[in-house]
C-alpha cells in the first residue's frame, strides 16, 4: 500500500517536471513580453535594458534551470504584468476555480449518476430516450454558447441570477469562499451549470454503460435469485460496482474540468485561475502562465492520487493480499 502510493508519487513528480519543462520551453514562444510591459513611448534601448534585467537574453537552459530551481525553492517569481508575486496571484485565484470545479463536478454527479442509473434500468423508456437525446444535444453545443445563453436568459431577461463574478465571498483562513453566502451561491449556479453540462453527460453515459454491464453480471443475477430487494440490488450492489470505473474517468477528467473552466471563467468573468491565465496570455506574462500549467498538472496528479486511494477504500480486493 505504502509502496503503491510511493510509486505513484514518483510518477507524479515525473509528470510535474515534464509539465514544467514543457510549460516553460513552449511559453517562451508565445510572444514578446517586453512590448506588453512598456508603453508606446518607451524607447527601444529602454526595452532592451528591461529584457536584459529579466534575464530574457540568457540561454534557454539557463532560464529553465533558474525557473525550475526557483520553483523548487518555493519561489514562483513575479508577474511581468502586475509585478506581484505569482504564487500569491495564483493562490488568490485557486479557491474560485476549485469551488467552481467542485460544484460543477457535484452537479454532474448528483444529476448524472441517478440519470445514468435510471437510463440503464429502463433503457427503452421514453423518459430515458429523452434524457439521452437532450444530453447529447447538451454536449454538442459549445460551452461558451451555453454560458452566454444562460446569462441572457437568467441574468438579463429574467433577472434571477447575477451575470458575472463571484458575488459575496467570505474569507476563511486565507481561502476566499462563496459557499457561505446566498449571494455567493447565486453567482455560482450559472457558471457551474455551464461547466458541468459536459461532465454531466459524460458521467451519465458512463454510469449507464457500466450499470448495464454490471446488471448482467453473475453476482447481480445471483442476488436477484436470492430475492434481494430491488432497491438494494440497484443501489447497494450494482451502483457500488459501477462506481469503480466511473471514479477513474472522473478523476482523469477533473483536470480537464479545471482547465476547461478557462472558457467558463472568461464568459462569466469568474475570478479564477483560468481568467488570470487568459489575461496573462494577452500580456505574455510568462511566469504566470508557467506556474498556472504546473498548478494544473499538480491538481491532475493530486486528484488521481486521491482516486487511487478511493479505489482502495471502495474495493477490498486492493486492500489486502491474502487471496488463496
Amino acid at each position, binding site marked *: 500500500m505504502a509502496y503503491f502510493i510511493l510509486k505513484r508519487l514518483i510518477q507524479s513528480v515525473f509528470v510535474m517536471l515534464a509539465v514544467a519543462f514543457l510549460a516553460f520551453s513552449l511559453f517562451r514562444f508565445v510572444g514578446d513580453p517586453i512590448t506588453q510591459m512598456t508603453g508606446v513611448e518607451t524607447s527601444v534601448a529602454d526595452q532592451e535594458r528591461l529584457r536584459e534585467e529579466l534575464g530574457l537574453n540568457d540561454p534557454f537552459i539557463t532560464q529553465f534551470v533558474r525557473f525550475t530551481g526557483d520553483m523548487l525553492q518555493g519561489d514562483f517569481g513575479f508577474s511581468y504584468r502586475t509585478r506581484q508575486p505569482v504564487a500569491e496571484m495564483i493562490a488568490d485565484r485557486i479557491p474560485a476555480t476549485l469551488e467552481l470545479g467542485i460544484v460543477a463536478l457535484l452537479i454532474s454527479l448528483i444529476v448524472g449518476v441517478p440519470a445514468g442509473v435510471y437510463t440503464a434500468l429502463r433503457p427503452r423508456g421514453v423518459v430515458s430516450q429523452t434524457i439521452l437525446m437532450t444530453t447529447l444535444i447538451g454536449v454538442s453545443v459549445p460551452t461558451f454558447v451555453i454560458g452566454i445563453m444562460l446569462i441572457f436568459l437568467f441574468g438579463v431577461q429574467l433577472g434571477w441570477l447575477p451575470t458575472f463574478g463571484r458575488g459575496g465571498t467570505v474569507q476563511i483562513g486565507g481561502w476566499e469562499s462563496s459557499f457561505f453566502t446566498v449571494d455567493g451561491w447565486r453567482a455560482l449556479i450559472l457558471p457551474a451549470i455551464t461547466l458541468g453540462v459536459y461532465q454531466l453527460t459524460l458521467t451519465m453515459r458512463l454510469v449507464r454503460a457500466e450499470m448495464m454491464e454490471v446488471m448482467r453480471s453473475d453476482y447481480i443475477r*445471483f442476488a436477484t435469485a436470492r*430475492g434481494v430487494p430491488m432497491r438494494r440490488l440497484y443501489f447497494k450492489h450494482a451502483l457500488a460496482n459501477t462506481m469503480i470505473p466511473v471514479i477513474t474517468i472522473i478523476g482523469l477528467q477533473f483536470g480537464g474540468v479545471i482547465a476547461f473552466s478557462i472558457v467558463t471563467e472568461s464568459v462569466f468573468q469568474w475570478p479564477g485561475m483560468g481568467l488570470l491565465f487568459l489575461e496573462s496570455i494577452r500580456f505574455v506574462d510568462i511566469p504566470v502562465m508557467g506556474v498556472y500549467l504546473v498548478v494544473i498538472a499538480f491538481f491532475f496528479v493530486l486528484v488521481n492520487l486521491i482516486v487511487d486511494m478511493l479505489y482502495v477504500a471502495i474495493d477490498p*480486493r486492493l486492500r489486502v493480499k491474502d487471496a488463496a
Partner: protein
Amino acid sequence: MLTIKDLSVKFPSRFGDVTAIEDVDLKIRPGEIHGLVGESGAGKSTVGAAVIGLISTPGYIAKGEITLGDTDLRALTPEQAHAVRGDRISMIFQDPQTSLNPLMTVEDQLIETIQTHSAVSYAEAQNRAVDLLEEIGIKNAAERIKSYPHQFSGGMRQRVVIALALCTDPELIIADEPTTALDVAVQQQVLDLLRDLADRRNIAFLLITHDIGVIAQIADRVTVMRNGKTLESGETAQVLGHPQHPYTVALMDAVPPLDHKIPRFRLPVEDDIAVQSKTKGADAKAWLLAGEQTAPTGLSVNNLTMRFRGTRTSLWQKPDSFTALDDVSFTVRPGTIMGLVGESGSGKSTLARVLTGLLHPSAGEMTLGDANLPPAKQRSRHHPSRRLMQMVFQDPYSSLNARHKIGAILAEPLWLYGLVNDAKQRRALAMAMLDLVGMPADSIDKYPHQFSGGQRQRIAVARAILARPKFLICDEPTSALDVSIQAQVLNLLKDLQATFGLTILFITHNMSVARQMADDMIVLRNGKIEETGPSEALFSKPAAPYTRTLLKLTPKMPPEWRTA
C-alpha cells in the same frame, strides 16, 4: 413438488420468435437431485431460468405450467415472484469467482439475504449465517464471515455461494453447472455437500450439467435434453444404464471411460469424420507426407524450473516469488503421445508455454530431437523449432483470429515457414487440409465465428499440422467442448498422429481423456512431477498417493451401464 408441464420459452428476434425450449416436462420431488443433462444449446439453463423467473430479456414463456407445491409460479405478480426467489427457490451459479459481489463481505451478503426473507434481528441473522457457514464446512466461520469473497479459495467460495442459496431454507435449489469451474477434488466435496443437503434437509435440486459423470455420481433422476426438447427422463440408472433414445446412446458412447482404453470412440454415422470423402484430403496427406521423411522426433526436458516474480508491494520487502515448475525432467519418446495431467495451478500450461518459447525458464534444458531447444529469449524467430513444434490451444474461440478468414489462417504457416510460395497453391492446400480434418471446402472463405467450437478446434488442428511439425503440444484441446465433439476431436488427433508419426504432448485435467490418448503419463502437482511412467501401468497401479486420489475422485459410471 416442482412440476413443469409443456413449458415453451421463446425469444423474439427480427426473424420471428426463436424457440429456446419446447414442451418441456419435468417433475422433482423433495429431497431429490434431478439431473438435467445435455450439450451446449440444449436449453437446459433456460429451464432453470424459467423456473426462478429470470429469463433474460426479451425472452418470455410462451406456454406451459410451472408449479411449486401449490403455487402456480406463472400466475405470480413480479413482486410476488421476487418474494418467492430466495425464499422458496434458490439458485447456484457456475462460477464462484463471479457470483459473489466483490465489494461486500460474505457476512453482509448473508445477512441481507436472511433479513430479506425473515423478520429476524441483525444479531440473530448473524448467528444463523455463522451456523450455516459451519454447516457447509467452512472452519472458523465466525471469523471468516468477515472476509470478502476474494479472500476465499475457489472451492470455499462455491461453498459460500451454496450457503447463500441455502440461508433462507428454500424448497428447491437450481444448481446450474455448480462444479464445472472446479477441480476434481473440490468438485467431489461440493457434490458430497449437495447430496448431504438433499438428504438431510430434504431440499430438491435441479442439477443442470453437461457432465454425465457428475450426473451418474449423485443424481437420483435424470432428464436428457437436446435442442430445447426433453428426450428421455427417468431414474439415473435406467436412463444412463439403458438408454432408449439414440442420442442418449451416442452420448454415452462418447464418454471416455476411466477404467480402460478404447482404440476409437464410436460415433453416430453422420458425425464420423472418417466417412467424409478423402479425395482432396488425400492431396493434403500426400503433401504432408512428402515433407521431411525424417524419423519421429522426441523431446526431453531436464531440471526445468520456472519462477515468477511477484508484484512488488512494499519498498523494503522483496516481492515473493512463485515457483510454477520445480525441477521438472521427463522424456517424450519419438512418435508417442505423452499425457500430462494435473489440477489447475499444477504448472501444466506453464510447461507448455516454456516449451513453445512463450516463457523464459529460470533454469533447465530442453532438447528437441537431437538438437538443443533454446529457451524463449535465445530462440530466434527463425529457429527451426518454430516450425517443428506446433500447438493446439484449449479455447477454440480465442485461438483463431476472429477477423481473419479461415483461408488466411491456414495459409499463414505455409508462407511464414516458406513451405509454399505460391498463393494459389497455398489456397488449394488449405482446402485440401480442411477436407482432411473433415470440414467442407467452402469453409475457406468464412470467418471463425461462423463455426461451432468443435469445427474451430479442427481448424486449429489443421493449422498446426500444415506447418509439417514433428512435435505437437495439445493444451486441453477438448476441455471446452461437448462430450460428443470431444470424441470427434480426439479421434481426429489419434488419426493424424498415426498417419504422420507425430509426437504429442497431451495436456489435460481429465484423467479419463488422458487414459484414452496417452502412451506415457506424467502427473504434475504444484510444479513437481508426482509420478511418471507408461500409461497403462500408471492407471492400473498408481504408485503416488496423489495419483490414487485423483483417480478416486474422478466421477465414473458403474461398469454395467456401459452399452459398448
